């Protein structure tokens, strides 16, 4: 019954995708909408393929993914250190609460001018924006995860004479993995949005900038098919990472362990 319902959902989603694409194509071709405002699917697809084969888009995709990976890795590492230290020292727990209380609601783009003053307009600024976007949801979730670790696991760890570091890694981190993954998913969503926006502002950082800069350049040249192509790339990468990569990680860990 569950499988039937899941298949039905898939067909409904597919149905709506086809309907929306059809509306788009009809509006762009026979609907009388200007090509400057709404290019046809064919024009967008052609521009996308051209940018991938002959343009800078592959490098720009690589650059965006590279900086987000570096930024989220730094955020995960910092969150784990802070969360573990918070377990042991009340002063650090208090600091962690104050910092996440201030940082979490603050949009990364609001910090942009300050980050430019502090870090300049290179890679460091982009990574700082990603770290800011990612750190707080991961830290908040990880703290919640550590609080939720069943006491029985900690007692077993003590019975096995595990050191505090072994208890932290083998028990606290692993038992909190569902919370950590949840935090990283939220962190990616926030960071991805902040990254694209920041790239539009910063311009051609690295060699040729990232996807955000690709989109911004299309606007400069009034290349609407290129604009749409860039947007589609942002959506597809976001979907791929959220739907496939995280799903894959969850299937190999928390689902396999019965922890979801």
């Amino acid at each position, binding site marked *: 019954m569950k499988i039937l319902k899941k298949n039905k959902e898939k067909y409904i989603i597919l149905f709506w995708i086809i309907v929306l694409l059809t509306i788009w194509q009809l509006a762009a071709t026979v609907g009388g909408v200007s090509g400057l405002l709404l290019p046809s699917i064919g024009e967008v697809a052609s521009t996308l393929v051209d940018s991938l084969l002959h343009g800078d888009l592959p490098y720009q995709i690589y650059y965006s993914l590279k900086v987000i990976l570096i930024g989220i890795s730094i955020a995960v590492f910092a969150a784990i250190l802070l969360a573990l230290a918070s377990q042991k020292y009340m002063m650090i727990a208090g600091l962690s609460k104050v910092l996440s209380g201030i940082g979490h609601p603050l949009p990364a783009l609001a910090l942009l001018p300050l980050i430019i003053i502090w870090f300049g307009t290179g890679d460091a600024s982009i990574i700082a924006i990603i770290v800011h976007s990612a750190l707080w949801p991961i830290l908040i979730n990880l703290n919640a995860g550590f609080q939720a670790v069943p006491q029985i696991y900690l*007692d077993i760890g003590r019975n096995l004479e595990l050191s505090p570091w072994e208890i932290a890694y083998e028990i606290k981190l692993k038992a909190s993995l569902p919370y950590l993954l949840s935090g990283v998913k939220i962190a990616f969503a926030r960071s991805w949005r902040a990254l694209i926006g920041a790239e539009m502002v910063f311009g051609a950082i690295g060699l040729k900038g990232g996807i955000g800069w690709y989109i911004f350049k299309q606007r400069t040249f009034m290349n609407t098919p290129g604009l749409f192509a860039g947007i589609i790339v942002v959506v597809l990468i976001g979907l791929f990472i959220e739907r496939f990569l995280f799903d894959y990680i969850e299937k190999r860990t928390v689902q396999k362990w019965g922890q979801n």
Partner: protein
Amino acid sequence: MDIKLNGITKEYHHEDGKIKVLNNLSLEVPSGHFVSVIGPSGCGKTTLLKLIGGFDSDEKPSKDIFMIFQDSNQLFPWRTLGSNLSYAIMKTNLGIGKDKAEEKAKAALAEVALLDFYDYYPHHLSGGMKQRGALARALAVESKVLLMDEPFSSLDQENKEIAYELLLKIWREKKLTIIFVTHDLEEAKRLSGQILYFEDLNGKIPV
């Protein structure tokens, strides 16, 4: 390993004031004995076991005195049954290799008739199997004393009988010291000829 407690008092703070859970309690259990401690729920039996095990005192717990908890979810869910045991063996026997640890893990699982489930994750096991897995872990790390806190309370009668037979067999073969806490008098009589009533432990009761 003998277990000796002498004149222990343990209090907890409650909104209504202090509650004395253990009141000048004394207990002696010589090595190799199987003793059941019986008392109603909430009287302090778990506190007693945790004290003996070093969980609730200044002493650190040690693998020589291993606790089997009431909650059947005491295996680490991120490791298979076999990996739970081999990890425990490697951590309590520094220097032992992975292959040797796996060999010992398999031997311990064979004793509790769970060898076929070596590669299973705990969430695929029944409550009774998880408790047997926890018992196998205690055997694998070569504990000398087992502190058992109503470990079979959630099992049906059929699985309880299997667990009782297994426990008694292991006790006889390994000459372990076992302190088994329960609120069920029939269970206590089934497992042990030496039954201590919790409320009597305020005076010194040599076993």
